[in-house]
């Protein structure tokens, strides 16, 4: 759909984990059009000395109610400011829907989604779509600690099998990074004769790089969502480039979802 710059109202803004919040926004036009993996470029009110918007993936949407959810982590000034937006707050503006959505191959019968930290959020709408299309979907989630596995409940409710989880402190699921779970999932699926036809990963770059490598090793088509600092957020300024085998591409409109094989890692 065409881009819009929509004034959004805050309906709810809840703390859901350590430095983790979910903002629920009324933004009907974008809610109607947004696809899994796309993002919104948010003007946060009350940031007069900050000249840039902030990009956030959409965690969930209700097209009929005209509502978007964003799961966000407090990492700096803007995300901290966001936590102060009370229900009813005006002044948020969203440019959206922006960017390349996840594009799972139509022929993939089984999919593996890997979310590290808040990277679990941009995969949720993808997961819903895959499940709806009858694709058998497994999810691996990693986080620092149990309470940071903020999306786990929703994935559990959606999936036949609960997501496999790892926490750095071992407070839930496997202790350590989630990478071993990914490797196991890929191997198990292959052994069971139902190999994955698609891997989608979102999280810190080192995680994505490793998962991309594993998918490549197992010959599975893999996509990932890249984060870059963004100025315009709509493809004009070339702030956000990612090195790819075809040269520099813009994370905002050529991505944020890239084919893993395209990406040239730093």
């Amino acid at each position: 759909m065409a881009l819009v710059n929509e004034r959004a109202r805050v309906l709810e803004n809840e703390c859901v984990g350590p430095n983790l919040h979910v903002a629920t926004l009324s933004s009907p036009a974008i809610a109607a059009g947004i696809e899994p993996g796309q993002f919104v470029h948010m003007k946060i009110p009350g940031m007069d000395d900050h000249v840039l918007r902030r990009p956030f993936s959409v965690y969930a949407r209700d097209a009929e109610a005209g509502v978007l959810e964003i799961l966000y982590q407090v990492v700096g000034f803007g995300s901290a400011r966001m936590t102060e937006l009370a229900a009813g707050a005006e002044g948020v503006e969203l440019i959206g829907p922006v960017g390349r959505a996840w594009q799972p191959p139509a022929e993939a019968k089984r999919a593996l989604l890997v979310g590290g930290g808040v990277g679990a959020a941009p995969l949720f709408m993808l997961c819903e779509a895959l499940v709806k299309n009858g694709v058998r979907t497994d999810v691996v989630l990693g986080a620092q600690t149990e309470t940071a596995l903020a999306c786990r409940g929703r994935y559990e409710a959606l999936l036949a099998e609960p997501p496999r989880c790892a926490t750095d402190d071992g407070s839930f699921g496997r202790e350590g990074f989630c990478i071993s779970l990914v490797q196991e999932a890929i191997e198990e699926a292959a052994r069971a004769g139902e190999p994955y036809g698609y891997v989608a990963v979102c999280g810190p770059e080192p995680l994505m790089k490793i998962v991309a490598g594993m998918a490549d090793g197992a010959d599975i088509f893999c996509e990932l969502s890249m984060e870059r600092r963004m100025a315009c957020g709509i493809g004009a300024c070339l702030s956000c480039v990612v090195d790819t085998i075809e040269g520099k591409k813009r994370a905002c409109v050529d991505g944020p979802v890239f084919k893993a094989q395209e990406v040239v890692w730093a």
Partner: protein
Amino acid sequence: MSVNMAVNLGGLTMKNPVTVASGTFAAGREYGDFVDVAKLGAVTTKGVSLNGWEGNASPRIAETPSGMLNSIGLQNPGVEHLKKCDLPWLAERGATVIVNVSGHSFDEYVQVIEALEGAAVDAYEVNVSCPNVDAGGMTIGCQTESVEEVVSRCRAATKRPLIVKLTPNVTDITEIARAAEASGADALSLINTVLGMAVDARTRKPQLARVVGGLSGPAVKPIALRMVWECHRAVQVPLLGMGGISCGEDAIEFMLAGATAVAVGTANFVNPTATLEVIAGMEYYCEQQGVESITELIGALQC
């Protein structure tokens, strides 16, 4: 009352004084859902070189108080791509087009202009803020000699309006302005970005891969206004003012200080319709103040 918003920028007729700052609006297409390019005084395209440049490594931007740094490094796909993809798109929509020209050598500037002479271009904006081999790797725009050289060579290559875009990173901008004027510039554009740097205390690293970058946005507005005012008193050619313009009032300030036209840059990023709002804000100001033609404001500062 209807305000006459038209201005003439060194031979370039603009239906209103507002263009975009090169590099912040690509060639307009990305903003197509927000801005009808025909409504702008002109579209100034992203800097273009002969064969295209890769630009710098990421991260390329950082946010600073009321501003931002960029070190895009003039990434562009080259002049042929501009001719094939962007200029026809702009022409179809009836846009007035200023092409921002870059080069790593004096020859490259001329080659870019030559390549564009047959195309739908209304004016050139020569960006002398590029580091350049002929200037010993230094920025051309910092020395009168290299400015004179590149401007006279570009001048010889075209009869179209030639705008020279100055860098603010100099001791005396009027000296450079006079050199550009004397070498045949029809107008001067200022300011380009101010050299700056940002540091991440936690990681102890520069925030830009390139370490230093160009500062733009409201933070630089006082510097830009001062330079426009200085140049207005130093040269005869008209000025295209920019640096931190985000609303109509900002634009009016530049015109009062001596600008004939203005460009909106960084403001597009936070507000994709900033250009249209600047135009509307300028018209509103004129109506309120009984200004019949916006040209009355050029250099009308009372001091």
